[in-house]
């Protein structure tokens, strides 16, 4: 590049006061390759930009250097101006002589010298700039939503209502998630099923939503706009196309004593079952681990042991030999909404940072239950028909102690984070208990009450004032069996007194953790996660629902503990991001990405190891006959974000980051 124009801006007095702009312009004019060098009061003003456009045409410039403010301020402005004059925008660069020079120095001679140096860096660098054009990536305008809880449902409906197709994958046999297990919801105490069920039905009936229940994501390939997702449809042992959900099979299944997952182990289900009556889709699933027929098969019994369900099924929908099947879907964006699980306080834990709670009996005391179990006890459709009864003997508890922060805010045994929802649902539980057992006494041990949210603090106050819950600030050191009751040893830190309570039942507000298997899913998606497995958002404040992998979004409690309103808001936010992405057929992005020199790449794949985005792929170089010559690296344009870590790592310098190539940096350093 030999026809460079240099434009030095005074920025009014901002630069001119300390930097002798005319002198800088003159010195730059003497550099080899510079054919035009001027200074001007305000380069960014319309006349200033006109000056650049005119010079490009007049002097047939093939490079423009603007010595002015920070490129973060005006790089776009000047590149646009250059483009308007017919110059490739990437042949225009800025040297920062304001923030990095005139504003931070006082001595005019020193500042002028430094300004010369800074502009010279860029003049030398731009000699090696090449014209670049923006990259266009086709977008497959369909979305995948992983997880059919309230967040996934909301996201799927919003996108589908926005006119785009959605594939909703749910690993359980029905959508609905944890919300379907709740009795009432805070802070309004409206029935959870009543508000959720219509939305579930809407999903099932929506023409643009393809619901894949009892399915899991097997693998994910590709990048933003062009993901290819392999989905495993687990064998239900039911021909979905034939089943009409009549329920005869369930009714006739002889094994009726299997602890129900939906009822949190407080109720029973059959081996072939629908998790709850409002399930969507309303198709049963056969639990092969508990089915007599499959147990018999496993033992090698020749004769078919059972098969009642198949006998009673009028539509012959039962298929004992069904296998897992796989389908592949092409989508342009993925929303992860896999939700949460509760911290189990037992002795065996899958993570090194969790230790369980031996002082609470490691979960072996029958009337010590967790929050979700209490939800089922309080639910009108629950195992007790909405009566609060003790799991051990079915008696009505007259005194319930609620313990908050079990596993939350506890570095020793659980997680340091706050699970956010427990303060609220414990308050709700005390109210539900008060409504159902008028003479019952609810006692809550808390660390702090965190009731930030619309109507939230008022709700907690109602629990205390109207439902007469006794709130004690302090921790409980042990739960022990004391005859028929549970001895709760704790401390009330406000009075400073140790407290000993014999409770009929204890409810633990255990911590919210991400779903098991989240890390393996995150690895499939190349999404980062924190120490606890919660998925990382791209920016905690400004990009809360995006991930660092373009085209993948997060909603709900898979990202951090979230309540229903938060999850729904996040879900709608992801939907709006996805619809925005889908508003164009192509995705346009800056071309500042890495490219590989196929000639010299040796295929050591150091670049692959350091790439934060998994943008490096393997490319087979073949001769004309199709014989493999070598395997080398190739950069996926859609995935590369342009950090350049690969280039610094490449031993033979066979990968270059456009915009910051080795030649450009070398030229700048040489200008020292």
């Amino acid at each position, binding site marked *: 590049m030999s026809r460079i124009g240099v434009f030095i801006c005074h920025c009014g007095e901002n630069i001119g006061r300390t930097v002798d702009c005319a002198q800088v312009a003159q010195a730059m004019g003497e550099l080899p390759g510079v054919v035009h060098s001027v200074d001007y009061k305000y380069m960014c003003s319309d006349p200033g930009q006109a000056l650049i456009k005119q010079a490009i045409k007049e002097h047939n410039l093939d490079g423009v250097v603007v010595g002015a403010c920070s490129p973060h301020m005006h790089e776009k402005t000047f590149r646009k101006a250059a483009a308007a004059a017919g110059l490739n925008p990437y042949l225009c660069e800025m040297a920062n002589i304001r923030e990095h020079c005139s504003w931070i120095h006082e001595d005019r001679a020193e500042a002028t010298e430094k300004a010369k140096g800074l502009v010279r860096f860029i003049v030398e660098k731009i000699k090696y700039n090449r014209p670049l054009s923006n990259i266009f990536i086709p977008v497959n305008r369909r979305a995948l939503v992983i997880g059919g809880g309230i967040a996934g449902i909301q996201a799927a409906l919003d996108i589908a209502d926005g006119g785009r197709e959605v594939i909703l994958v749910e690993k359980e046999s029905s959508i609905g998630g944890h919300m379907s297990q709740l009795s009432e919801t805070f802070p309004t105490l409206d029935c959870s099923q009543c508000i959720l069920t219509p939305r579930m039905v809407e999903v099932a009936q929506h023409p643009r939503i393809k619901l894949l229940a009892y399915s899991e994501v097997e693998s994910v390939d590709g990048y933003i706009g062009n993901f290819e997702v392999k989905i495993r449809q687990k064998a239900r042992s039911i021909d979905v196309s034939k089943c009409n959900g009549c329920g005869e099979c369930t009714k006739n299944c002889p094994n009726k004593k299997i602890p129900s997952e939906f009822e949190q182990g407080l109720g029973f289900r059959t081996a072939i079952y629908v998790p709850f009556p409002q399930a969507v889709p309303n198709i049963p699933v056969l639990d092969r681990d508990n089915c007599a027929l499959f147990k018999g098969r496993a033992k090698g019994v020749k004769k078919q042991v059972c098969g009642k369900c198949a006998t009673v099924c009028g539509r012959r929908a039962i298929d004992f030999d069904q296998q897992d099947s796989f389908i592949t879907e092409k989508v342009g964006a993925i929303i992860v909404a896999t939700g949460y699980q509760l911290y189990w306080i037992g*002795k065996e834990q899958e993570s090194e940072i969790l230790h*369980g*709670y*031996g*002082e609470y*009996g*490691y979960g072996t005391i029958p009337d010590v239950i967790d929050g979700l179990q209490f939800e089922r006890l309080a639910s009108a459709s629950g195992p007790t028909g909405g009566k609060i009864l003790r799991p051990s003997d079915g008696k009505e508890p007259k005194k319930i102690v609620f313990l908050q922060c079990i596993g939350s805010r506890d570095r020793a045994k659980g997680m340091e984070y706050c699970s956010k929802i427990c303060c609220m649902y414990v308050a709700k539980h005390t109210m539900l208990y008060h409504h159902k057992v008028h003479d019952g006494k609810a006692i809550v041990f808390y660390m702090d009450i965190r009731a930030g949210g619309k109507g939230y603090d008022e709700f907690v106050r109602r629990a205390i004032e109207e439902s007469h819950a006794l709130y004690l600030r302090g921790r409980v050191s*042990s739960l*022990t*069996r*004391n005859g028929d009751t549970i*001895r709760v040893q704790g401390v009330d830190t406000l009075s400073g007194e140790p407290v000993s309570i014999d409770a009929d039942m204890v409810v633990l507000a255990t911590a919210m953790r991400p779903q098991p298997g989240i890390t393996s899913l995150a690895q499939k998606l190349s999404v980062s996660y924190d120490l606890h497995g919660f998925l990382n958002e791209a920016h905690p404040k400004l990009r809360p629902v995006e991930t660092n992998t373009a085209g993948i979004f997060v909603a709900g409690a898979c990202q951090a503990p979230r309540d229903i309103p938060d999850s729904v808001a996040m879900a709608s936010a992801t939907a709006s991001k996805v619809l925005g992405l889908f508003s164009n057929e192509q995705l346009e992005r800056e071309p500042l990405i890495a490219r590989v020199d196929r000639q010299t790449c040796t295929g050591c794949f150091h670049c692959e190891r350091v790439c934060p985005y998994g943008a490096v792929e393997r490319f087979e170089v073949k001769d004309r006959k199709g014989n493999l010559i070598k395997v080398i690296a190739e950069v996926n344009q859609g995935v590369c974000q342009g950090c350049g870590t690969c280039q610094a790592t490449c031993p033979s310098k066979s990968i270059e980051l456009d915009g910051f190539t080795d030649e450009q940096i070398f030229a700048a350093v040489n200008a020292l």
Partner: protein
Amino acid sequence: MRNGEAAMKVGYFPGCSLHATAREYEESLKAIAPALDLQLEEIRDWACCGATSAHSTNHLLSVALPARTLVLAARQNLDRVFAPCAACYNRLASAQHAIEHDKKVASQVESILGASFGHPIGVLSIAQLLSEMTDRIRSKAIVPLKELKVACYYGCLLVRPPEICRFDDPEAPTSLESIVTAAGAVPVKWDKALECCGGGFSLSRTASVVRLGRSILRSAKDSGAQALIVACPMCHSNLDFRQRAINRSAGDDRPMPVLFISQLVGLSMGLDPVRLGLNRHFVNPQPFLSTISAGRVEHREQA
């Protein structure tokens, strides 16, 4: 696990109480050791472990005192040191932990002692030592204990803090249970196995010790235990020596014999109760001994 191996040699740190108030603990240990092929080599010139005065007043001293013993053990070419007293065990293990994990303290202590640390020493509690030998205990248990129900009491120091002890579960330990099971007794499930006995407040704040002991003994009795098994001289003292006061305050006249775990193991081996020091207890063990048809002891009534 060292089960089934030939003779095991460990360093032996009796501490002050095994030569004084808990003589029966040492007697029983020395009585069962030969049967278990266990060689206890006393550390020459050992000094006080420092509990509890040292660690409540001066951290450096609390490391230096037991560290001296550890240096001596290394000089005696011992890899492991057994401290029968739970407090001694805890101090020695804490000192070893500090030496390994806190370089600053380690170098300060080295200059105090004027000696450098040799190889790291494994510090063993009685629970650790005997749970390594459950097979031997089982094979030597010739006297049927007849489904004897016992409550195993750990107290606060035997398995805690977990980062120092690195043995058993700090909240729901089972090592003593596995030992008594090997000896032929039946451990009961009870709640107070880890509660505080009052420790050194036995003399200064007797009322507190009586209150704490009351809840421990009540829970043990309620669980159907016929004897309480302990592994610490201080626990033993509080629950045996103070038991008359405890029972009186509770209006309960059922005495509960309190045995060191080594005594129970000794009984299962058919050793003479007097050799095991059972005659030294304040609670008369005779009714209990009769239930398992062990020998007789002459009991002196408490004044």
